[in-house]
């Protein structure tokens, strides 16, 4: 495992920002962190970067203790915060040059290429750039680094839809290069699109780990039932569940492969049938039903 946390806890007095978090991230994986504000996503990432000292537990990157040897850890990490603040007196070009030269993993040519793709004006001073432009500049600096791990803390928070799409492409490209990405976001669709696994955090606790490939196989089938529901065949009992809704509607839940069910479903007296993937929202709402409104709707 490239990243590993074991009973990681961070407390500020009586407030627990992260509580007993144990998880791991495999090399080459895109790992998502999901949760509302204050759930502990940023605390977890800052503990990995050595910005915070854990109250209890251990976090390692590539087997190195994040708290004790944070410099060695950060030589393996490229980090992008949600609201990247850069030195205002520097020009865009100088910012990229600084980040490329301050560490051995920097690659100025690659940084200029990404900046070019993002249509950045590098002759401009940071002070005169919009928030989105500054974020793009930080994106170019971060994605140009040749590190095995990318930590992106809500990287698309201040970006327009076009650039959001570019960010997701950059994450895809990083994954293709074999890099590991940790990606925190409020936007479910982004997480759903790019992540291999997702953890959901609530009030500092890791409450759910979701493998996205498994989620993509799960479906919800809604239909109107015109007659009594026949019994489910024995060989399908474990592959489907259903519940009756109001107005004669019925909803089936398929936790696995859909194709084996379609034959049986076609024999039922159903009309107006719709099939849709379960989606991350349904999972997320199980844990954050009351705060779902905070989360951006895909």
């Amino acid at each position, binding site marked *: 495992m490239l990243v590993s946390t074991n009973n990681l806890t961070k407390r500020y007095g009586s407030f627990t920002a992260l509580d007993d978090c144990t998880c791991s991230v495999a090399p080459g994986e895109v790992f998502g962190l999901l949760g509302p504000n204050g759930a502990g996503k940023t605390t977890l990432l*800052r503990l990995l970067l050595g910005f915070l000292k854990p109250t209890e537990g251990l976090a390692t990157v590539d087997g190195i203790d994040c708290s004790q040897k944070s410099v060695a850890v950060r030589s393996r990490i*490229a980090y992008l915060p949600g609201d990247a603040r850069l*030195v205002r007196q520097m020009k865009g070009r100088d910012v990229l040059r600084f980040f490329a030269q301050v560490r051995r993993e920097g690659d100025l040519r690659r940084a200029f290429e990404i900046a070019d793709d993002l249509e950045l004006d590098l002759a401009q001073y940071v002070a005169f750039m919009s928030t989105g432009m500054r974020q793009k500049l930080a994106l170019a600096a971060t994605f140009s680094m040749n590190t095995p791990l990318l930590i992106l803390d809500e990287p698309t928070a201040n970006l327009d839809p076009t650039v959001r799409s570019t960010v997701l492409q950059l994450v895809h490209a990083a994954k293709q290069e074999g890099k590991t990405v940790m990606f925190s976001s409020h936007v479910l669709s982004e997480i759903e699109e790019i992540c291999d696994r997702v953890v959901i955090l609530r009030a500092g606790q890791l409450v759910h780990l979701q493998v996205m490939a498994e989620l993509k196989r799960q479906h919800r089938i809604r239909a109107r039932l015109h007659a009594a529901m026949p019994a489910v065949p024995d060989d399908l009992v474990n592959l489907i569940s259903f519940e009756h809704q109001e107005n004669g509607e019925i909803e089936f839940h398929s936790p696995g492969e859909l194709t084996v069910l379609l034959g049986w479903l076609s024999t039922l007296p159903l009309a107006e049938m719709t099939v849709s993937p379960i989606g991350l929202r349904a999972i997320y709402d199980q844990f954050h039903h009351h705060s779902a409104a905070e989360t951006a709707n895909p």
Partner: protein
Amino acid sequence: MNFVLIRKSISDAKWLFLSFGVLLFVFCWTRVWVVSLIETPRFTAILDQFWEQFGHFSPVSFSHLVSYPGRVALTLAEPIVVFGISIWAIARGSDAVSGPLDRGTLEMLLAQPLSRVQALTTQAAVTTAGTALLCCLCWLGMSLGIQYTVVKVAPESAGLVLPFLDVELPNPFQDHQPVKVPLSNEVNPASLVPAVMNLFAMGFCVAGMATLVSSWDRYRWRTIGIISGFYIVEFLVKIVAMSAESLQWLRPLTFFSALEPQWFVYITVEEPELTWSFFLFDDNGQIVEMGPSSYNLTLLGIGLISYLAAALIFHRRDLPAPL
């Protein structure tokens, strides 16, 4: 040391340094030139009127204060010079941790494989070098002022010496009009070097203390407020301590007690063998007071301890996310 980090730190400091550099250089040159505008007899007469009431505020004797070395040395005690160095030190010191933390730029910097101590020492090194250069500019300004200023002095007495009796009589034919001489005849710029070093030690001390406050604070405005408040209190303590003999016990409570550039010039001119001494002794060999080197060591020691404490605090603290 990371060369790229040093370059960035210099770039951060350059405009502040340039503005203070020009200010101090021009002021010191001008201030020395102003010495030539008031002839010594007039200056003596003016000072004499206030000496009884305010003489105890002077760290040097009346005779030295009215001499050209004493008058030039006053430049280093001028508020513009002392506060100029102090403001530079506070501005730079407060920008060590709480400054970039407040602006949010520390996060991206420390996300790179740089240790916190490395970031702090780089900033401190540039601040210290800047303080030293500003002090050098003060000295250069004064030296050029000394070089290019002409003053009027009373002509040397040329009496009539009676042969065999070895008695000198006043020469009634001598011209008593003051003669113009270069100030460099009266003041050696090298005699100002120890005093300028004292000024540097004060700048290092203030920068260290500002860095210490900055290392645990989150907001730069609050750091500046705390250190400025402390600075003013220390300054007032020195004034109160000097105002009466009975309040002398306050002197060890303020670092300003170790800032005496005029006294440094006095020692260098009048008792050059004591210029680098740690203690001053009386005729019986008993220590009567600290020497110039002890003054500088006190200031440098406070600064160094502050920097070390700052490094320890910064190394251990949590870095909060930018607001």
